[in-house]
C-alpha cells in the first residue's frame, strides 16, 4: 500500500495534476503496491478533479473536505474508487461537503466517520482518541485503507495452450499474504472466470477483485477468438463446431490454475456467463477438482452428458432472467433434479443477460462470492 498526502493550497489545476502525477510516479516506482490519496480541506476538490484525469488511485481519504458539485459528479462516475470521509460535526463549513462526497460514491466500502470537537483536517489525528468502543483515527484510517486496497493485487498475465491449439490469454490474481483481513495461510482455492460471447475478461473487473479480496486465486481468461486469445482466428469467424469446442479452453484454464503452487488444485470453482456457462460445464464434466459452478444466464444443456453431470452432485448456482422463459425453465428443471445441498437458483426480473445483471443487481457479485466461499473453500 502506498499513500500520497495532499494538503495546503491547491494552486493551479495543472500544477496540482503535475504534483499528483509526480507523487504517484514516485510511489509506483518504489513498487509500493496499490495507491491511495489522503487529501484535506480546500485541496480536495482540485485533487478529485486531477485524479479523475490521471487515474491510478484506488482509494481516497477526505479530511474535512471542500468538494464542489463537479467533483462530486466525478466521484459518482467512479464506482471503482473507495472513499472515506472524516469530519468534525462542529465544522459546519466542511461537514456538508464531506458527507456529500461520501454519499456520491457508489463503492460498497466507502465510509464516513464524524467526530465531535476533534478539529479539522490532519489535526483530527491528534485529537481523535481511542475509546473502549472504537480505535483512534489513525488506526481507523489504516484499517479502512488496508481493506479498500486489498482487492488491488497486481494481475499476472498468463497464457497456456488448449489441446486443439488455441493460445488462451488471461490474468491471474493471487490473494495478498499478510495479516487480517488477509486470507488464511496455505494454498488458496481457485476460481476460473469465463465471459460471454460479445465480451471478454473485462466484464469481470469487479468480481475478480471481490474474489481475490475474499482469499480466492482467480484466473480470468479470454476464451478462444475473443479478447487477446485470437491466435487461430476471431470468434465470429469460427464454425459452430469450433466454438462448441471451447470447453477445452475451460479445461485448460482449470489445469493451469490447479498447477500453481499458490492454489489448492482440489478446490476449484468456475463462473460462466451465457456461452461461458456452456464452456464451463463442458470443461468440468468428470473433473472432481471442480466443487462448484456459477451459471449466469443463457445456459441450457447441450446433451445428456451435461444434464447428467449437473444433476450428479456438483454444486451449482443457477442465475436466470425471468423474461428468458425457455432458459429459466431448463435451469429450473436441472435445479429441481440436483442432489447438491448447496445448489441454488436465482431468477431476477426482466431480460438482462450476464454482465448486465451486475449493473442492475449490485448485490449479485457479492452473493456469488459468498456462495463460492461456502461451496469451494
Amino acid at each position: 500500500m502506498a499513500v500520497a498526502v495532499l494538503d495546503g493550497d491547491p494552486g493551479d489545476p495543472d500544477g496540482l495534476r503535475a504534483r499528483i502525477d509526480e507523487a504517484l510516479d514516485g510511489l509506483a516506482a518504489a513498487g509500493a503496491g496499490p495507491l491511495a490519496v489522503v487529501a484535506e480541506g480546500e485541496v480536495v476538490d482540485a485533487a478529485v478533479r486531477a485524479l479523475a484525469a490521471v487515474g491510478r488511485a484506488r482509494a481516497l481519504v477526505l479530511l474535512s473536505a471542500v468538494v464542489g458539485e463537479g467533483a462530486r459528479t466525478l466521484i459518482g462516475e467512479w464506482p471503482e474508487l473507495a472513499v472515506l470521509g472524516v469530519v468534525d460535526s462542529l465544522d459546519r463549513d466542511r461537514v456538508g461537503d464531506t458527507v456529500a462526497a461520501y454519499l456520491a460514491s457508489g463503492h460498497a466500502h466507502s465510509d464516513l466517520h464524524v467526530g465531535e470537537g476533534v478539529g479539522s483536517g490532519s489535526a483530527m489525528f491528534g485529537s481523535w482518541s481511542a475509546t473502549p468502543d472504537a480505535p483512534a483515527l489513525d488506526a481507523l484510517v489504516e484499517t479502512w485503507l488496508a481493506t479498500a486496497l486489498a482487492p488491488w493485487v497486481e494481475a499476472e498475465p498468463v497464457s497456456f495452450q488448449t489441446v486443439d491449439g488455441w493460445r488462451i490469454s488471461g490474468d491471474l490474481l493471487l490473494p495478498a499474504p499478510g495479516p487480517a483481513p488477509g486470507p488464511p495461510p496455505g494454498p488458496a482455492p481457485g476460481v476460473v472466470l469465463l465471459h460471454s460471447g460479445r465480451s471478454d475478461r473485462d466484464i469481470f473487473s469487479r468480481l475478480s477483485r471481490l474474489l481475490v479480496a475474499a482469499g480466492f486465486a482467480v484466473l480470468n481468461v479470454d476464451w478462444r477468438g475473443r479478447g487477446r486469445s485470437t491466435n487461430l482466428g476471431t470468434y465470429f469467424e469460427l464454425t459452430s463446431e469450433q466454438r462448441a469446442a471451447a470447453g477445452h479452453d475451460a479445461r485448460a484454464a482449470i489445469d493451469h490454475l490447479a498447477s500453481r503452487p499458490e492454489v489448492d488444485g482440489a478446490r476449484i470453482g468456475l463462473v460462466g456467463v451465457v456461452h461461458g456457462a456452456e464452456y464451463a460445464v463442458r470443461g468440468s464434466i468428470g473433473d472432481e477438482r471442480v466443487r462448484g459452478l456459477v451459471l449466469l444466464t443463457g445456459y441450457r444443456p447441450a446433451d445428456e452428458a451435461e444434464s447428467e453431470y449437473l444433476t450428479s452432485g456438483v454444486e451449482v448456482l443457477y442465475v436466470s432472467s425471468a423474461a428468458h422463459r425457455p432458459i429459466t425453465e431448463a435451469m429450473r428443471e436441472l435445479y429441481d433434479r440436483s442432489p447438491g445441498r448447496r445448489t441454488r437458483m436465482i431468477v431476477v426480473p426482466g431480460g438482462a443477460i450476464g454482465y448486465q445483471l451486475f449493473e442492475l443487481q449490485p448485490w449479485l457479485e457479492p452473493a456469488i462470492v459468498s456462495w463460492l466461499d461456502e461451496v469451494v473453500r
Partner: protein
Amino acid sequence: MTAGGAVTFAAADGTPVHGDVVRPEGAVRAGAVLVHASKHERDAYGVSLPQLLVDDGFAVLRIDVRGRGESREPVPFPLMAPLQRRAVALDVAAAVDFLAGPDAGIAAGSVAVVSEQDSSGPALAARPGHPVAAHVVISGRLDAGAREGLDGLAVPVLALVSTEDRRAVGDVTELYLASGDERSRLRVVRGMGFGTTMFSAWQFAHPSEPTMEESIAAWLTGVL
C-alpha cells in the same frame, strides 16, 4: 459489401483509435459511425446492421474505443478514471471526421453516430469538425458531458431501450424530449436486456417482426 479494411487514426489528444470501414460499391450517400459499449468491442454490432446500411448507400466505420479491443493500450478501460472514460468523446469526434474526410465522398452533415450503453454519453458529447447529422442511442446512459449539450439539441434521435434498464429508460427519455426534431423516435421494449444484445433477444422473441437492425437502418435511411 465492399471491404474497406482496417484503419487507424488519432483522436485530438493523440490517442490512436483502431477500426474498420466498409463502403458500398456504388455512390456513398451518407456515413455511420458505430460505437460499442465499454464491455464490448467493435464487432458488437455484428454483420447485419453494417450490411443493411451499406446496402442503403452508407459508408460504415466501426471503432474500438480507447481502452478496448485493438485500442486497449496504454490504459485498459476498466482501470480508467472518469475523465479518461469521458475522453471516448474524442475518439467518436475523430471517427466522424475520419469518415467524412475530404476523399470520402460524403456530403457535409451526413454522418450519423450509433452508440450503445455507456458509449452514448461520450457519443453525444463529441464535437467533431463535421457536425453529426443524427444519433441512434441504444440503452444509452447520459453523462455530464452529454447533458451539457442537450439544450438546443437539433438533430433527430432514435432511442431504443428495454424497460428493466431503468437508468437508461430515464436517460434516453430525457434525450428524446430534448430533441427538437419531429423525426426523433423513442422505442421502449420489454425484457430485451441492454444495448446490442437486444438485437438477438428481439429476433428470438419476435421472429415475424422486423429486426432491430432493420428498424435502425430504415430510420437512418429516412433521416439522411
